[in-house]
């Protein structure tokens, strides 16, 4: 695919996402007509329609789109960094690492402002990723070791999270909805808290696409082309975890997006790493926006957590990738 086709592909995905966001403004406990939505969007007034659109439905749809882009790029960075097609914020334990300290803050340190939650998430995610990658290196970075290391880190943190939830008592219902991943009741402030972290990850990845491209070769090749591995590895790792840390406090864990989006983007074979990252971000946005729309319309007036929808979509993709032997690594076919 040349640059023109790649940019067309990205534009198409972005347009589809925007369309979904607008369509997503229609359904809900009170279904709105298209012209009511357009009127409310263009000329907001104090009427119920514009309140529904501007304070309830638009911010959550945008939050879903932003979160999707962030998680997808996070997965892309983790996969390139480890040269491991399985790497994903969920599988490497980064999500569990971000969620556990946030739950702990919420229950044990209730006076801490939610502004600081992404920092706690970043610290936890970094710690979890470090342990997982350290373990994976023991197995020469094989997918199995990464997956098992990540899953044991996740189980460890998950056990602690559940214990903290038990301690939380009546608060646990709200927290439970949160740790299942979702955008219900997300406001502009959630979006604003999340945005800088996602921007750091996505823009950072786009700016560094040349370094990332080197990384997807071998360590030797990268070093041969003058890439300072020890300098860039930690930078890329932090960049990869930033979006998860930003998304986790607002939306909780949203599974499999980071795994699936880069693979889908690669299937389309865009030109060069930069385009691949852009397409990955756009596809991530589209997936989470669609999942969020499904989650809140499938059982009106009940809401499903969006994490279920992405797991139901992403899990089979994962199994498909395994079956097609696409999870090759260093000559070993998964």
């Amino acid at each position: 695919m040349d640059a023109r086709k790649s940019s067309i592909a990205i534009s198409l995905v972005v347009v589809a996402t925007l369309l979904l966001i607008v369509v997503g403004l229609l359904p809900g406990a009170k279904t709105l007509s298209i012209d009511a939505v357009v009127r409310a969007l263009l000329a907001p007034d104090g009427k119920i329609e514009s309140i529904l659109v501007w304070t309830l439905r638009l911010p959550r749809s945008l939050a879903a789109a932003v979160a999707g882009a962030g998680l997808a790029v996070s997965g892309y960075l983790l996969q390139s960094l480890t040269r491991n097609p399985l790497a994903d914020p969920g599988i490497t334990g980064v999500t569990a690492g971000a969620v556990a300290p946030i739950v702990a803050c919420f229950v044990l340190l209730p006076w801490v402002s939610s502004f600081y939650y992404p920092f706690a998430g970043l610290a936890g995610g970094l710690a979890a990723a470090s342990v997982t990658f350290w373990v994976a290196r023991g197995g020469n970075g094989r997918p199995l070791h990464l997956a098992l290391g990540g899953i044991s880190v996740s189980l460890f943190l998950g056990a602690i999270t559940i214990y903290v939830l038990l301690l939380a008592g009546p608060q646990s219902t709200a927290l439970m909805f949160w740790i299942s991943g979702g955008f219900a009741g997300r406001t502009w402030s959630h979006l604003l808290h999340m945005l800088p972290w996602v921007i750091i990850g996505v823009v950072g990845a786009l700016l560094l696409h040349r370094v990332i491209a080197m990384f997807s070769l071998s360590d030797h090749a990268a070093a041969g082309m003058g890439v300072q591995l020890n300098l860039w590895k930690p930078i890329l790792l932090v960049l990869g975890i930033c979006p998860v840390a930003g998304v986790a406090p607002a939306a909780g864990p949203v599974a499999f997006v980071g795994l699936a989006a880069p693979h889908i983007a690669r299937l389309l074979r865009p030109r060069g790493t930069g385009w691949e990252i852009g397409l990955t971000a756009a596809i991530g946005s589209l997936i989470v926006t669609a999942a969020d729309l499904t989650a809140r319309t499938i059982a009106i007036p009940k809401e499903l957590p969006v994490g279920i929808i992405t797991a139901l979509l992403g899990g089979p993709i994962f199994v498909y990738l395994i079956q097609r032997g696409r999870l090759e690594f260093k000559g070993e076919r998964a």
Partner: protein
Amino acid sequence: MTSNSPAIAQPNAWLLPAAALLVLISLAAAVFLGVVDIPAEDIVAVLTGGGSSEARAIILDIRLPRIVTGILAGIQFALAGLILQTITRNPLADPSLMGVSQGATLTVTIFLLFTVYIFNPGSHTVAELPIGWLPAAGTVGGMIAGGIIYLLAFRLGLSPLRITLCGIAIGAILHAITIGLIAGWGSARIEIILEWLSGSLYARTWDHALFLLPFTAAGLAVLPLIYRPLILLQFDAAVARSFGLSYRKQFSLALLVSCALAASAVGSVGPIVFVGLVVPHLARFLAGRHFPLVLPLTIVLGAVIVTLGDLIGRLAGRAEEVPIGVVTAIVGAPALLALLRKVP
């Protein structure tokens, strides 16, 4: 079929007596120690048929059923893990990593929500819930999850890596559905489900022990039948066949036994993670690759570790006890990580 590496010494003769001693010590500790302090002579009196009614209630109705349930569940988890690790030739296989636990958890959650919302919408106390049926519900779910992985595994040509990855994927999907259901509909009963999700022996009664007993007994009774196949299945399909073994049949039988053991245990006590993973390794660490010794050691250590883990959880929190699943995760995860660093 003893050790295949000359570096591994013959197993020590004192291993089994030492293990038996460990069982006695941990059993005694579990009976004599607890949140309520009861003088030792009172406990002895209860055990010999006397004692005050209060002490009798605590020992006979609370501590003992809990200990027995724990022992049976521990044996089942450890045995399930050993069988799974042997037949998949994957030293890291474990029911909690293979979707079986998640399947059991999902059906238990569905069962609880279903009974609350359909049959018993007004119920507000735990006593009104059909908790006695939870082990059966969990067993069904665990078996179904095991069946799905079995079907995928055969399509994938039984590669250990693929089976494990599929198990992780199926487990993640089932877990997400569970959490989603709890979040969406579980508000009224959330604490029961949470406690059960974390793997706990809290409030386990003789009913739980009685539910598990036939599974434990059947699992142990089948062992002589799958003993030789298990030893051969450690190698690959070709070796097993050259010894005249029907690979597919034996693999299926062993997997079925493993799933039944794990699923019924998860159904009764929740996912006590890592016992199935770590105990067989501990047994192999102690006994080398001497399978005739690894097997009994696995069974004994499974019982001991769950008993001690539960005792730690009971004593650690005092008022708010730490579920044993949390204890085993906190101890087991680092053990697995250390193991992963060593396994090439």
